């Protein structure tokens, strides 16, 4: 078992592409840690730096508090599952899985025992005698996992291992991966751009953008308390609604106001915003679609007219035109509204997010 720590890691690809920008991370022993971000955000590079496939331009990498920055991958006791699975085409499944053990000169019967054990765990015992090209995508993926697990590494690195699978298989595998990780108590670092995957699997999530770590925390924390506009927009589906608003202070009565928006704030909240905001007249209000509910005209603090209705069966996504913005509301009830009709919405002040547009940081 192992912990992983990155200290001030920067990776610059010549001539001057900054892939990873001064990243500090601490992955705890036994943790399922997610590196989440859009493509090109540096999450894969970060993972490869941990694996030792890339050398950081600056900074140090520690595994189990040992500085491994200058060690090649084979001396780091890590295992990696590649996005393409990277099975050896000329080896049978059995040999693919046994390969890392053979390189370590493990006794033959021990190899056999462990290969069969891990194959059983991943339900690929019947495939051991086949070549990779004879397997389906899901089967290949299991073989790749088996190969990574067979020698019980300190750290298990997974680079979008599910992205090449179809949707149903992907959902199945998520649960399975999580189960395996918990069962084997292996530290896992998992790279994904899929926030649903991140939310459902990770013990903690690090959200990356443009080579920087924006926020690290448990999925609920990242979801509920996004520290930046980017995190807020990246996590959640459908994504958070954003509107430009102004803070109005009428004798201690604070409210966030825009066309069709008038959210009265408790005084202490108003004060915090007033204090923190660089310009109280220009704020960004963030509301998650699932936190909007229909209400009466008097109770409502957001109003607009129905723009599009997306019925999804168990829920309905309502697109509402508020001022110049289109916002989405996720409603669990069946609705009878028609397009163009007026609609009154309510959001609890507990569930609002306020961002400073100049810094893109969360004020509330």
């Amino acid at each position, binding site marked *: 078992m192992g912990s992983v720590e990155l200290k001030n890691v920067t990776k610059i690809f010549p001539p001057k592409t900054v892939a990873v920008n001064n990243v500090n991370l601490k992955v705890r022993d036994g943790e399922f840690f997610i590196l989440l971000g859009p493509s090109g955000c540096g999450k894969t590079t970060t993972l490869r730096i941990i*694996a*030792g496939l890339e050398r950081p331009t600056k900074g140090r990498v520690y595994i189990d508090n040992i500085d491994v920055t200058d060690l090649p*991958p084979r001396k780091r006791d*890590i295992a*990696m599952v590649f996005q393409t699975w*990277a099975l*050896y085409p000329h080896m049978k499944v059995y040999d693919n899985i046994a*390969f*890392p053990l053979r390189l370590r000169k493990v006794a033959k019967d021990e190899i056999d025992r462990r290969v069969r054990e891990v194959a059983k765990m991943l339900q690929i015992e019947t495939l051991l005698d086949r070549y990779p090209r004879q397997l389906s995508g899901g089967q290949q993926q299991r073989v790749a996992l088996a190969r990574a697990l067979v020698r019980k590494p300190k750290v298990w*690195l997974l680079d979008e291992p599910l992205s090449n699978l179809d949707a149903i298989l992907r959902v199945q595998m998520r649960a399975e991966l999580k189960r395996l990780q918990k069962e084997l108590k292996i530290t896992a670092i998992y790279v994904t751009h899929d926030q649903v995957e991140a939310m459902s699997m990770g013990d903690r999530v690090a959200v990356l953008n443009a080579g920087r770590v924006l926020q690290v925390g448990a999925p609920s924390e990242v979801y509920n308390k996004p520290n930046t506009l980017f995190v807020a927009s990246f996590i959640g589906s459908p994504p958070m609604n954003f509107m430009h608003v102004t803070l109005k202070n009428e004798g201690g009565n604070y409210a966030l106001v825009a066309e069709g928006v008038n959210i009265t704030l408790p005084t202490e909240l108003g004060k915090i915003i007033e204090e923190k905001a660089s310009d109280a007249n220009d704020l960004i209000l963030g509301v998650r679609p699932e936190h909007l509910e229909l209400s009466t005209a008097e109770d409502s603090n957001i109003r607009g007219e129905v723009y599009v209705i997306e019925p999804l069966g168990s829920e309905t996504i309502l697109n509402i035109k508020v001022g110049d913005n289109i916002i989405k509301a996720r409603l669990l009830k069946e609705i009878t509204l028609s397009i163009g009709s007026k609609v009154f919405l309510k959001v609890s002040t507990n569930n609002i997010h306020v961002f400073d547009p100049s810094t893109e940081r969360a004020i509330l």
Partner: protein
Amino acid sequence: MVQGKNESVFQAREDLSSGGIIDKLASFFEGRGAFLFLVPALVLIGIFVIFPVVWDVYISMTNASLVGPSAKHYIFIGIQNYFRLFQDFLFLNSLKVSFAFTILSALIGQAILGLALALVMRMEDIKGKMLVATVVFIAWVIPEVVAGYAWSAVTDKQGLVSAILSLFGVKTEYSLYFTHPFEVIVVANIWRGTAFSMILFTAALEGIPKYIYEAAEVDGATPWQRFRYVVFPLISQAILVDFILITIWTFGVFTLPYMILGPGGGIGNAGQLWTLYIYFKAINNFDIALAAAASNVMFVIVLALILAYLWSMKYFRRW
């Protein structure tokens, strides 16, 4: 659609059966249109490839000579030339020399050096690799005659090698191609032919995705293990192809050794490849029948080698 097409063909046949000679010919060529386009090529191949081969086999069973009475009237003497051939110590010597030459210069020299260079070419952070590649390619593209003269000059008593050796206090009494004819042509041929193997292996290595190397690296393979267990098996087919091609070529190499050593193959015939032997017999000794027999034996041996390669290829790739 398919049905319609068949019908029209059927229709055409009926038309033809009632026609004249043109129609009959047309019916003969019907569906053989592709063959027509091959006719000019087949005629040329027949004249320039098949006929000489047949003629060569025939000549090898006569007492034909370039000069003398048997140049005018040669007679069929069966396989006597082949007996003569295998009693000729020069021929047996040339067999030995050719095999040693092919194994040392092609299979060991060119292939291993080519593979090493191809691996180096794939490495990052190696300075001057383009320079090396350029040099290797130049060796490949310059005309063989020029290369031959260059090697004679380089290995001459007053040549580059002697000059370098003299820097280390080694005094060369004779030209290198004189004292070590075989070694000189082996090195010259490695120098000349490495580029091909390098290109072939470079292409094969390009075909291996980068993540396979990385997977092996993460799995704990040392650079050597990575080569031995992953890269090597994956390019083994390319190696086999390379072996086939360079074996054929090297057995047939003539110009370079001829330019350096002449038809005798240097002192003690140490570098007399069988191509040189054939030339020597045909042009210097005017014994074209024996030379024809020798070239047929060469053909059979090379063919056997290629078949062995192809056979092993068939049983090679399983994945």
